[in-house]
């Protein structure tokens, strides 16, 4: 028996066992590196090799083999010295690594500039963080019963788990119901064809929700369904809706295009100019002779597509529209109630869209009136045509501001290049001669030009026929070829007016007939480029924002786990109970433990599935972090962080700058290493990751072992002969 034992002892310390061990470990490691390369996952490789029990067994075999091989040489002789030194060194390193593994600390700490922390987390650990208003605990998933020690009345059971999942925030629409605080839940209709004559009745509060991928078409058909046009005077019109909606940015330039009596106008539906009637067939003539107002049933519309992006639309009672896009999992706002114990909410703000076209126009006139009044009060000079009007009003005891505005507004509606109405008698003789002459010429020419233009003809042709000498200069001004682009007519007319004025001295005189006189004032205004369109101010009417709020919840979805285990986010379902109530809660792993903590059991506790955090005796505050680049490049030269490290036991502080490869070590062996700084941009607030570690055996075993091993190898190879 002793013989067998002795043989076994010699086998364990023998070289054949050593060669067997080295070869098997080598094979294991080779397989490990190829697994890691194939799956791009260190954890996957580790699962089958480095962390495998068999591998650990081989390592322990190593330990025993080296130990026994040394003991076997007892009693030691001089020639054994190099051998013993080498193998003692190896044992010390192995021992050092094992002690670090079981008793050392190795964790990560994330800090944002200006903040601090004294907790580090173990990246590959899975714990449940449970807290109530008084206490907090991390419970290992494998020993959920431990929760009793901190929360005696709480029971936690693992009801299910999957290796990989995703977590999606749900806000306004959850399943087939919509939620807004203060309203009863509303139904969500599943629609695949937007043109379906659906029998959807909008409820009294005009909130309606759909699940559909036909976002724009659906919104459009809802909009058109309740749209009514109010045309003054009452003439038949055709209209078409251009929603101009982008799935990314929402409304761009939505508008309603209206055609009647050979004229076209459009109403912008969004933005500061919304609902204003825009003449696009004859913009040079001011407004069209009819106005259009919209009547709409005010509606809030939610459409969620199958990718969980949510589109919010608001339609005002006057037809104005507003939209907002909520990308899935990108929250625009987050509110927490009682630090999360009463849950979370997200918010939506939108204008109440209550102003009509009339409101806006009145506001504009009001603003114009005020500025004219103020100008006169301060005695600032008016432009000559307005000064002429002011003097005429004074003479006739009329209110200048009112007269002026009424005249301009009237002209704007008259659909004429030159308005033929004048209230007070003007003192035309006060005008410089050339200006008066120009006005007469305009009074003669413009009505003719207007009739030409209305027929869709090019007025430059008319000028050419009349042998207007400067027609070429006008031709040069325009970009398109004949007939004139409608947009260009206004500027061309203005240019023509200036031409008239500049060569008026050469023009033959015109008989100042009474017929022309009513047109003179409008011509004079045009000469100074004063029309209603030009001087009309754009008031910015602020309207109150309406705020809606909805409860924020999450939905968890099982995913196919990736071979790259580091990317997987496990999901657990927990059954929870205390004395009075029960709860079921599903949680997806929160990789950094920084996300929301979810309330359970009616808000008595908060719960999060996260890595394990432990406290260290130092509080680390990040004062400033920076990336220094090489000249004229974005290649980093150095990463640095200024830290204030406070010992929590005696409250002494040191300020220290750590950089990559330049660590800080405290007197009791805690080391702080800068692992990363994000983002790299200069002006953003930085977040850093610090690796914190504590190795009790480093200076006793590992490093001396390394030195001893090195000496041993050299002795073993080159001194043995001399010793023997």
């Amino acid at each position, binding site marked *: 028996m002793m013989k067998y034992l002795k043989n076994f002892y010699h086998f364990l310390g023998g070289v054949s066992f050593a*060669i067997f061990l080295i*070869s098997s470990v080598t094979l294991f490691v080779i397989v490990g590196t190829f697994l890691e*390369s194939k799956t791009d996952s260190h954890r996957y490789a580790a699962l089958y090799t480095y962390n495998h029990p068999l591998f650990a067994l081989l390592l322990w075999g190593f330990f025993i083999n080296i130990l026994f091989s040394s003991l076997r040489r007892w009693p030691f002789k001089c020639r054994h010295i190099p051998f013993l030194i080498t193998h003692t060194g190896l044992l010390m390193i192995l021992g050092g690594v094992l002690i670090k593994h079981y008793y050392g600390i190795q964790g990560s700490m994330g800090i944002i500039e200006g903040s601090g922390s004294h907790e580090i987390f173990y990246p590959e650990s899975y714990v449940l963080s449970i807290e109530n208003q008084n206490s907090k605990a991390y419970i290992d998933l494998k020993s959920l019963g431990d929760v009793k020690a901190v929360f005696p009345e709480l029971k936690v059971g693992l009801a299910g788990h999957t290796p990989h999942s995703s977590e999606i925030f749900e806000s306004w629409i959850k399943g087939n119901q919509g939620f807004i605080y203060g309203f009863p839940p509303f139904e969500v209709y599943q629609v695949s064809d937007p043109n379906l004559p659906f029998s959807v009745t909008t409820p009294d509060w005009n909130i309606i929700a759909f699940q559909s991928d036909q976002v724009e078409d659906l919104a459009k058909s809802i909009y058109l369904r309740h749209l009514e046009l109010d045309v003054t005077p009452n003439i038949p019109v055709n209209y078409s809706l251009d929603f101009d909606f982008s799935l990314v940015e929402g409304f761009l330039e939505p508008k309603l295009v209206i055609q009647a009596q050979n004229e076209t106008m459009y109403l912008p539906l969004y933005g500061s100019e919304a609902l204003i009637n825009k003449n696009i067939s004859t913009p040079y003539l001011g407004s069209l002779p009819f106005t259009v107002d919209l009547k709409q049933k005010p509606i809030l519309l939610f459409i969620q597509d199958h990718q969980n992006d949510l589109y919010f639309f608001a339609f005002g009672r006057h037809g104005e529209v507003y939209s907002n896009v909520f990308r899935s999992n990108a929250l625009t706002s987050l509110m927490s109630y009682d630090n999360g114990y009463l849950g979370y909410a997200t918010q939506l703000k939108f204008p109440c869209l209550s102003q009509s076209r009339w409101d806006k126009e009145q506001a504009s006139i009001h603003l114009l009136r005020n500025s004219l009044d103020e100008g006169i009060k301060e005695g600032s000079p008016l432009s000559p045509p307005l000064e002429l009007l002011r003097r005429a009003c004074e003479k006739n005891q009329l209110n200048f501001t009112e007269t002026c505005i009424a005249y301009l507004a009237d002209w704007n509606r008259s659909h004429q290049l030159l308005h033929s109405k004048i209230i007070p008698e003007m003192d035309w003789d006060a005008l410089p001669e050339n200006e008066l002459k120009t006005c007469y010429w305009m009074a003669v020419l413009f009505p003719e030009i207007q009739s030409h233009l209305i027929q869709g003809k090019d007025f430059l042709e008319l000028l050419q026929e009349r042998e207007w000498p400067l027609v070429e200069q006008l031709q040069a001004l325009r970009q398109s070829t004949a007939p004139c682009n409608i947009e260009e007519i206004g500027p061309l007319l203005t240019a023509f007016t200036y031409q008239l004025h500049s060569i008026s001295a050469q023009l033959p005189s015109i008989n100042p007939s009474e017929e022309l006189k009513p047109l003179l004032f409008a011509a004079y205004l045009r000469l100074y480029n004063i029309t209603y369109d030009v001087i009309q101010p754009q008031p910015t009417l602020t309207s109150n924002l309406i705020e809606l709020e909805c409860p924020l919840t999450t939905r968890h979805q099982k995913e196919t786990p990736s071979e790259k285990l580091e990317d997987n986010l496990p999901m657990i379902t927990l059954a929870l109970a205390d004395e009075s109530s029960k709860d079921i809660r599903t949680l997806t792993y929160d990789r950094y433990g920084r996300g929301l903590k979810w309330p359970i059991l009616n808000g008595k506790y908060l719960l999060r599935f996260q890595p394990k955090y432990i406290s260290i005796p130092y509080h680390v505050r990040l004062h400033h972090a920076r990336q220094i680049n090489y000249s*004229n490049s974005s290649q980093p030269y150095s990463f640095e962080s200024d830290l204030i490290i406070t010992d929590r036991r005696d409250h002494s502080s040191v300020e220290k700058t750590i950089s990559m490869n330049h660590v800080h070590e405290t007197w009791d062996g805690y080391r702080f290493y800068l692992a990363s700084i994000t983002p790299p941009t200069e002006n953003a607030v930085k977040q850093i990751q610090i690796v914190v*570690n504590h190795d009790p055996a480093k200076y006793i075993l590992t490093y001396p072992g390394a030195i001893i091993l090195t000496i041993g*190898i050299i002795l073993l190879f080159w001194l043995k002969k001399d010793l023997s």
Partner: protein
Amino acid sequence: MKRFLLLLLMIIFPKLLPALETASAYKGRIRPTEAYARLWLYDFYHNQSIKPKHAQAFQATSAQELLWKMNFLGHSPWDKAPLFWIHYAKLKQILGLTQSEDYFSYNQLSQALYGDKESNLRLVKPLLAYQFIKAYLDPTNRSRSEKIELTSIAPGLWLKWVDNNIIVIAIPQGVFWKFLKPEMVILSNAPKQLSSYLNEQRMITEEALTLISLIQQYEAIAPPPTNALLSTQLLPLQHSKQSPKEIALSLESQFPLRERIEKSGPLLKILPGARGEWYPLNALHLQTYDAKQNTLVAIPNFTLFSDELFVEIRHAYLALKNDLSEDNIENLKHLLQKGYEALEGKPYKQATNKTLVYPSITQLQAEKFYYQYPLIEIAIVLYAMGLVVGALTYAKHPNLTFTLLLIAFVFHSLILCLRCFILQRPPVSNMFETVIYVPWIAVLTGLLLWLKYRNSTLLFSAAFSAIALLLLLKVSYLSANLENVQAVLDSQYWLLVHVLMVVGSYGAFILSGIIGHCYLLSYWKHNKETEENKFLSKIILQSLYFGVALLIPGTILGGVWAAESWGRFWDWDPKESWAFISCCTYLIGIHAYRFHYIHHFGLALCSIIGLMIISFTWYGVNYILGTGLHSYGFGFGGEIYYYGYLLIEVLFLSFLSIPKRIQKLGV
């Protein structure tokens, strides 16, 4: 040390030392303008100098000449010159370019890239599909969003999945995207295995992105900026009777001077400014508003040069702009040198524990020298000479071979010293440098062992390993350029010692491996163990010892360094794992030999198997295991050659060792 090196250079190459050189900043380093011009040209042209057949089209004969001319004339005179090198056949096919050609002009490429709708879409569609799928599969896309903005290459460009197709939703401005339309299908019927699609498309995508970026760089090259906008803005301001102070403020807010200086040109960043920034030469053409004179004046000094010198430089610049003559360039360069002399050796960027200083003119000269002469080729020729002469005369004059190889070795050392001197760090920070360093150690070991054992195989093996590895450098695509070291490697003394030791051990192992081959060949020839062979195996053992004595402590030192820097001694990272595997391989061999499990033959076999393992640790870990998502740019078929080497080695071993066994059985 510097003086000594310069002296050494002067002695060896008295006439070759370049004339004084100006400094300029390029890709984060301060380099001689000559080196900058060569690297700049290489990016487009894949050659550091202009080929004689293209000299006429380029209107220049050297990279520097082209650079200076383009700086003043902008890119348009060269739009028809074949400046762009495209080698990748698939890219040429997509762009509709002639397959047999490798050089293309800007006009050809811009037409193909965004002039022609078909070729544009052929390129853009797979490019976008690749980026979209990559973003879709990225772990940061936690909720598996199916609508993604391609922020990295085209902010504002949104794509989405519809069933199995990728469809455009929103398109930003930009010439490359002008043919895209909303709802356009980018990729129909995407393959099931998205990650293998990515692997297939990675190469073409990277090539296309490189080309696009080069074209954009080229388009940015413009003549010196005019001051017309500034003067047109100034006139109304002066007429509106604003005070000079108000005018100055208004102009500065519209045209911030700093921005104008920085954007005055992409080329020739040759004017040193504060905080280590370098400004383009063309900034000298700018004018600024002077409140005292109430008019535009030439830009005042914004450089680190003295004010008097700055004025001189500006005059020289303007003279050069009017007349692009050789004399005017020389004159300007001379003044720039004069200015730089005051800066050399001074710090310009301070970080904790380290500082960057302006390189000395000697360093700049050395760098210019490095780029101007084919140093590696010369080293190869010297080694080859040693090998050939040795083969012919070793029997009679062994010392002659030794002397020749010593000369080659000194020259080889000089290349390493040159790199050390220019970059101020040991030459082991990238693959290129290690491929110079490893044969150096092999030759060093060979020469030292020769002094002790006087065996010809040592010298031949050393020379052979040097020639083989240096030739490998020439045929590989490794960049020979002098660049900054990565921040993570720019570190302590111990890291350097660790790398020098571990990589050095490869040299010793390569030597022992080659001698191992010699042993086996000789064994096969004589069919038995000769005295000569026993002697060879002794040498093999010694060089194995030397290698292991470097490798094991070096690897452990790496562990110590990792423990100091990252707090973990060992983590089974692939490089660590393979260092461990190499250690184990040699340990098995040494244990087996010392305990008489194997003999001379086994040791030689072990040195060859060890060589295969070491080659994998050195090359395979970076280039084969690294072939995941995070390493592109390696091995244009490099793996094939490597597998070829392994196969030949295995065949060699089986050919030589199997007959021996059969023979033994027969006995």
